[in-house]
C-alpha cells in the first residue's frame, strides 16, 4: 500500500506531540511502579488495578460535584489520595508481612490482589462504560501546523515534567527520599542505624500507588473508563520500567518517552503493524542494554 505517502514534517511533529501526551500518562504510572520495584523489590502487578480504580474514583467524585471546573479539579486531587489510602490499608494489612518473600511470591500475591480488585470494581461500578467530561477550559483543540491538537493533551504534556520534578525532589532532596534510596541498596544497614524501615517502605509504597491513581485520574477524561483497563496498562508499564532500568525514575521517563513516541510515530509510518512496535522496541533495547538503559538499583 501507499507506504509512508502521507508523512510530512508537520505530521511527524504532530505525532510526536501526541506521543508526548501519551508519554506523560505512561511515565506517571511507570514511575510509581519503578519506585516500588526499586525500593521495595515488589513487582506490583496490582499497580494496574490501582490505576483503574483511580479512574473510576475520578469519575465518581467528578459526578458527585456535578462536573465542571470545580468537580474536575477536586476529582483530580482527591482520587489519587483515595487510591493512596487504599494502598496504605493494603500495605499495613498485608504487604508489610511479606517483604522477605521471594519476588515471584510477591508477584503472585499482587496478582491475586488484581483478581480481587477487578471483581470489586465490577461490583461497585457495574459494567457500563463511564466517561468524565472535561471542564470547558480543556475542551476543544488548538491548531498547530494545520493539525488539531486537543487542549487537554497540552495540560498532560505540562503535567509530565511537573511530576518528574516532584519525584526528583522527593527522592533527592527530602529525608524520606534519601532513606528510601539507601534502603533500596541495603535495607539491613538502614535498619541498623535505627531508622524504622517498615514505615519508610510503607511511605514509598503509598507514594508509588498515589502515582498509579494520579495516572488513572488524568487519563480518565481521554477515554472510556471500564473494566480491563488494568490489564492494558500493566504490561506496558512493566516494559517501560525494564527498558529504563529497574527502580530508576529517570529510566522510567526515558522508557516512557521511547515507548510513547515509537508508538505514535509507528502509527503514522506503518499503521498496519502498529500493534508490534512496542514489543520490537523493548527487544531491541534489551538486546543492546541487557540491564536497561539507565543504572538500576537492583
Amino acid at each position, binding site marked *: 500500500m501507499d507506504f509512508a505517502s502521507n508523512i510530512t514534517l508537520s505530521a511527524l511533529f504532530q505525532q510526536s506531540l501526541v506521543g508526548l501526551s501519551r508519554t506523560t500518562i505512561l511515565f506517571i504510572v511507570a514511575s510509581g511502579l519503578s519506585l516500588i520495584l526499586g525500593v521495595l523489590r515488589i513487582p506490583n502487578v496490582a499497580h494496574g488495578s490501582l490505576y483503574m480504580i483511580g479512574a473510576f474514583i475520578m469519575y465518581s467524585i467528578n459526578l458527585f460535584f456535578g462536573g465542571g471546573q470545580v468537580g474536575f479539579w477536586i476529582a483530580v486531587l482527591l482520587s489519587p489520595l483515595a487510591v493512596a489510602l487504599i494502598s496504605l490499608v493494603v500495605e499495613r494489612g498485608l504487604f508489610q508481612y511479606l517483604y522477605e518473600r521471594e519476588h515471584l511470591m510477591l508477584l503472585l500475591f499482587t496478582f491475586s490482589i488484581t*483478581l*480481587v480488585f477487578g471483581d470489586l470494581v465490577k461490583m461497585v461500578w457495574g459494567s457500563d462504560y463511564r466517561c468524565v467530561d472535561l471542564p470547558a477550559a480543556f475542551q476543544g483543540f488548538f491548531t498547530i501546523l494545520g493539525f488539531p491538537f486537543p487542549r487537554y493533551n497540552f495540560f498532560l504534556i505540562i503535567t509530565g515534567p511537573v511530576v518528574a520534578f516532584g519525584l526528583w525532589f522527593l527522592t533527592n532532596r527530602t529525608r524520606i527520599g534519601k532513606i528510601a534510596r539507601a534502603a533500596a541498596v541495603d535495607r539491613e544497614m538502614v535498619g541498623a542505624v535505627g531508622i524504622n524501615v517498615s514505615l519508610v517502605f510503607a511511605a514509598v509504597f503509598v507514594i508509588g500507588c498515589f502515582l498509579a491513581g494520579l495516572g488513572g485520574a488524568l487519563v480518565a477524561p481521554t477515554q472510556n473508563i471500564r473494566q480491563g483497563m488494568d490489564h492494558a496498562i500493566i504490561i506496558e508499564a512493566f516494559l517501560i520500567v525494564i527498558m529504563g532500568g529497574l527502580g530508576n525514575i529517570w529510566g522510567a521517563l526515558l522508557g516512557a518517552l521511547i515507548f510513547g513516541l515509537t508508538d505514535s510515530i509507528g502509527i503514522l509510518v506503518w499503521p498496519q503493524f502498529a500493534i508490534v512496535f512496542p514489543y520490537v522496541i523493548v527487544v531491541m533495547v534489551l538486546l543492546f542494554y541487557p540491564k536497561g538503559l539507565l543504572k538500576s538499583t537492583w
Partner: protein
Amino acid sequence: MPERSAWKVLVPWLAVFVLLLFAPRFLPRFQVYLTGLILTTGLLAVSLNLVLGLGGMYQFHHAVFYGIGAYTVALVITKTAFSPWIGFLLAPVVSALFSLVIGLICVRLSKLYFGMLQISLGSLVWAVVFRWYSFTGGDDGIHGIPVPDIISSTDGAYHFSLILTAICLIVMQRIVNSPFGRSFQAVRDNPVRSEAVGINVKRVQLTGMVISGAFAGIAGSMFVVIEGSVFPELMFWTLSLEIIIMCLLGGWFTFLGPMLGAAIIVLLRTVVGIYTEYWTLVLGFVLMLLILFLPQGVLGYFLEKFKRGGMKAV
C-alpha cells in the same frame, strides 16, 4: 538402587495410574473431560517448573511454547496432507526450536530482565499468530480440528492425555535426577560457583529451556485433542501468569507440586464458576490466604509437615 524401596515407590504410583486408566468406567463424562484437562494443564505447569523451580529462571512466557505445540498439531491436521500423528511428533520439536531461538536471545539476561524480554518476544509470536488470518486463523483461531478417530471421543482424548502425561512425567523425573538436572540445580543455587567448577551456565540454562519448551509443546498437542480448538489466547501472557501461579501454588520446589496447583486452579474455577460469576474474587482470596500461610505451596507444605524426603525435593 535397593529393590524393596523402589517397589514401595512404584506400586502406589502404578495403582494411581491404573485407577485413572479405568476412571471413565465409573466417572461421568464431564469429570473424565475435566480430569483430562487437569492432566494437560498440570503437565504444562510441571514443564514450566523445570526451568522455574529447578533452574530458578524467570520463565514469564511459557504459554508461547504451549500454544506453538497446539498450533503445530492443528496446522498439520488442517493444512497439510500428512498423517495427524506427524503433527503430534512435530509439536515438541517445533516448540523446542522456538524455545531455542527465544532462549538464545534471552539467556544473556537474568531474573526480571530475562522474564520481561521473554514476554516481549513471546508477545511478538502471539501478535503474528493473532494477525496471520490466512495461516493461523487469526484471532478467531481454528475450531473443529479433526483429530484421529481413536482419540476423538471424550474417553479417547482422556486416555491419550493420561498416557502421554504419564510418559512425560517419568521422563521429566529422570531428567531432574540426571547429571544435567543436578547441574541445572547448581546453577540455580549458585551461578558464580557453578561457572567456577566448569559448568557452562548459559548452555545449561538454554538446554533447560529447550527441554521445558518441548514438554510444553506436548501439553499443547494434548489440548488440541481434548478441546478440538486452538486460538491465540493459548499464547497470551495472562495464561503464562496463570501457569506460574499453578507452580507457586502447588509448590515450586517439588516435582509434582505444579500438577497439584493446576488441579486446584482448574477445579476451583469450575466449581466456583458454577455458583457465581465472581469466581476470580474467590480465587484471589484463596491465593492470598495460601501465600500468607503456606509460602512453600500446598504440596511443599505437606512435604515439610510430614518431613518426608522420599519425594526427592527438586
